[in-house]
């Protein structure tokens, strides 16, 4: 039979009805950082191909990457890549069947966020 009410039916609750949780937020953050790093990757590839091409091409790429805006992008990328790195380690740990209890998963998520900040600051100090 034809559904007379198609398109106007109540929907089951979706993302918006849930309180943000560490598990869901750290999961989506992994995806956001991983995909946003495309921009950084392309900038770095540009820097490399420019260095391999000529001094003037390198000057342009280097100017962009080391300008205040480049510094900002690189700083955010550093945070993003360290977070994605730690979140990836968390996934590899999960893949062994361990750390899947909600409390452990939340603790590991918090550790990844804090760890990313710490590693970013360490990188800036060392490099």
């Amino acid at each position, binding site marked *: 039979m034809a559904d007379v009410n198609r398109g106007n039916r109540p929907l089951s609750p979706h993302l918006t009805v849930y309180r943000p949780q560490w598990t869901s937020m750290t999961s989506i953050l992994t*995806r956001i950082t*991983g*995909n946003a*790093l*495309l921009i950084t*990757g*392309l900038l*770095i*590839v540009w*820097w*490399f*191909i420019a*260095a*391999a091409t000529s*001094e003037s091409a*390198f*000057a342009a790429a*280097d100017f962009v*990457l*080391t300008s205040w805006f480049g510094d900002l992008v*690189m700083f955010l990328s*550093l945070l993003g*890549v360290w977070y994605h*790195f730690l979140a*990836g*380690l968390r*996934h*590899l740990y999960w*893949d062994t069947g361990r750390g899947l209890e909600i409390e452990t998963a939340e603790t590991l998520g918090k550790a990844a966020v804090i760890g990313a900040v710490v590693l970013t600051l360490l*990188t800036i100090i*060392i*490099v």
Partner: protein
Amino acid sequence: MAFLTARKRAEGLGSAGGATEDHWNMTISSVALAILTPLFILSFGSILGAPHAEVVAYYGRPYPAIVAALFLAVGFMHFKNGVKVMIEDYVGGFARKTWIIAMTCLSYAAAAVALFAVARLAL
């Protein structure tokens, strides 16, 4: 086919009928990147901002050149597989195909440019 048991046909495919390979490919590249990422951050970070001649000399050495080549190549393959899963999650139909093809081409292109650039600097 008739000689295969039901279990044998299902083995390794997962409930979706596929994609266990996607997961396994991500596992391999993520383990590789777990090692390469810190190495690349430290080496690239130490030379970024240096003048052109210094950069050329730096990447003429084997260690920085090999780390950069490996990291960028493996990184873009990891990106290619990861972005594919994201597209499959959020986009359907023709747009899905278009996005996956575009991102796959971009990933290979970026990896090729990176390898060419590093090779040219190194040799």
